[in-house]
């Protein structure tokens, strides 16, 4: 296992370098200075304590959606529905936060549980459809994304309408926000919130489930070979539903960290891009919890830095998304890198 991981991390690193290179070439083509661009991009994410805090806050939902996609992947399922699960989780947390007037610790606990349940229940449906009817989860989760999109579109203006705008919910109060004074002060006024701790906890828990428990072993066995797992007496269908549910719960929690942590309201008419970036995070992180943590932090850095770069140069902020997309393409085609790596080794006389 150890060697497999280290090789995958090398491939991920090469993909990152190639992605950054592609970004540099794009900047040159559009008559911008890539050195200056990257300097401001990384400065924008790391320059001071506040910006580091923002990087971590941006990475928080990415860690959770990345874990969500990675967890499903381990069971051989492709969860493209993290965006929808995130929306429903965020909606559930927002609904609780705007409805009840309890002391902060109680309220936050209930909100977090609501988001986990919301995302989990949303993902049970594609899981069950896959297990019971063999409906491909890629298509069903895409459908669930749009159902979530329209649910939020009608529920928010209908029940939680904002003070000024129909298109967003009321602002959640200080008592219902994952932002807490000591963390905000520690990072000098950044967007960082308790979500970062929840995300770290999730990484540890998911790593523990996957590597140390029977459940994790069974899930991975189903992912490696469904038929062999069935033959070995593992309840494949139950594991598929369970895996999707846990994946959805993680994405739902990601929704809470975004909508009642990073932001302070929920907007209609947007599928959160973090849901799709979760696929990228999971792939770059080799579907391992710690890899996801690293990949999400890196993407969080790119996303936080792009605004500063855009302000200081003429480079459009979408360069960050382009770099991320290119990295994913290179990790999908990593076999090319592997082949050239092997060829290089052979040529230099190294042992294969």
């Amino acid at each position, binding site marked *: 296992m150890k060697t497999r991981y280290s090789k995958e991390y090398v491939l991920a690193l090469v993909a990152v370098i190639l992605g950054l290179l592609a970004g540099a070439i*794009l900047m040159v083509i*559009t008559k911008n200075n890539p050195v200056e661009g990257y300097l401001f991009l990384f400065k924008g994410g790391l320059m001071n304590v506040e910006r580091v805090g923002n990087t971590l806050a941006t990475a928080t939902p990415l860690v959770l959606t990345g874990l969500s996609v990675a967890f499903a992947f381990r069971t051989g399922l*492709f969860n*493209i529905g993290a965006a929808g699960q995130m929306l429903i989780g965020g909606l559930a947390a927002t609904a609780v936060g705007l409805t009840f007037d309890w002391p902060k610790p109680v309220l936050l606990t209930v909100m977090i549980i609501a988001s986990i349940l919301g995302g989990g229940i949303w993902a049970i*449906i594609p899981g069950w*459809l896959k297990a019971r*009817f*063999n*409906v*491909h989860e*890629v*298509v*069903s989760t*895409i*459908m*669930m994304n*749009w*159902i979530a999109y*329209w*649910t939020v*579109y*009608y*529920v928010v203006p209908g029940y939680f309408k904002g003070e000024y705008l129909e298109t967003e919910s009321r602002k959640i109060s200080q008592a219902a926000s994952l932002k807490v004074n000591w963390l905000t002060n520690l990072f000098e006024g950044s967007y960082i919130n308790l979500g970062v701790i929840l995300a770290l906890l999730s990484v540890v828990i998911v790593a523990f489930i996957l590597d140390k428990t029977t459940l994790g072993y069974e899930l991975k066995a189903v992912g490696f070979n469904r038929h062999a797992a069935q033959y070995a007496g593992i309840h494949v269908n139950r594991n598929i539903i369970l895996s999707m549910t846990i994946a959805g719960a993680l994405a739902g929690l990601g929704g809470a960290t975004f909508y009642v942590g990073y932001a302070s309201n929920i907007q209609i008419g947007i*599928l959160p891009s973090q849901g*799709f970036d979760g*696929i*990228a995070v999971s*792939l770059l992180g080799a579907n391992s919890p710690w890899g996801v943590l690293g990949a999400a932090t890196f993407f969080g850095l790119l996303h936080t830095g792009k605004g500063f770069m855009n302000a200081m140069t003429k480079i*459009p902020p*979408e*360069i960050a*998304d*382009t770099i*991320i*997309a*290119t990295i*994913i*393409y290179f*990790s*999908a*085609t990593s*076999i*090319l890198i592997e082949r050239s790596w092997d060829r290089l080794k052979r040529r230099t006389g190294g042992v294969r």
Partner: protein
Amino acid sequence: MWELIVQVFPYAIAFTIPLLITALGGLFSERSGVVNIGLEGLMVAGMFTGVLVISRFEVLFPGTAVWIGLAAAFIISALFSLLHAFACISLNANQVISGTALNMIAGALTTYLARNITGSGNIQIVHSLVRQDIPVLSGIPILGKLLFTQTYATTWLVLLILFVSWFLLYKTAFGLRLRACGEHPHAADAAGINVYRMRYIAVMISGAYAGLGGAIILVAISGEFNGTVGGLGFLALASLIFGQWKPLGILGATLFFGFASTIANVSQVIPAMAKIPGILLKTFPYIVTLIALVLFSKSSQAPRAAGEPYDKGKR
């Protein structure tokens, strides 16, 4: 009621056509054995190419610029789809991941370039496609009013492509070979068909069609580019499955989506439908797709080798 149908019909058709051509593209790709989840990105690429070309040429030739734009979208998206083809066919990459990467690249890259050009990321065209009555046919009672009045030329173009595609897939040796690659690539290979080349061609057709679909949205519906086609590519994918990987099935499925979405959009102004909650109308197409998937999954007509990289060594 009749008034209403006459009013809704053109909108439903306008929504159906880009969906139809994109889903047809997906049909070629999947029939050859390559799942193409990147249709959304290919549409965006086509829409972007279209807006760039048309906004440059419409000053010089206002009438024909639209057609130059559509042709450019057709070609550029076919080239863009080579990224997917190369990853899936030559490198045995996971097809769903490669398609997802394609979607992400298209969305991000085009918005980046658009922002570089205009500063805001929005590019508009002045001359959209003109709606025309078809002479003689529009005089037919009932049907004339519904089908042949105020139509876009692209609608007829896409219907022509639908017919040609059907003919190509079911009545020619090329189509037989292409379908064989998606069912039993090893048998096809044994019969002397170059599976890799067939799949490359099929993926490029899917790119060209999806690009055309994206450009049609531009010239017939939106008139501006803002970096997204709002999930229509995914809806085309659903139509492909809903339509059971058959041209006529796809036509039916896309018409269904066209009407369902249009009705949901106009429901507020129709007294009879105003009582139905909007959320039900809007989610209706997606829920029906899920139900359809459940019903069809037992007797799925999916190409057997779709999603599996072809490995010559396993023959």
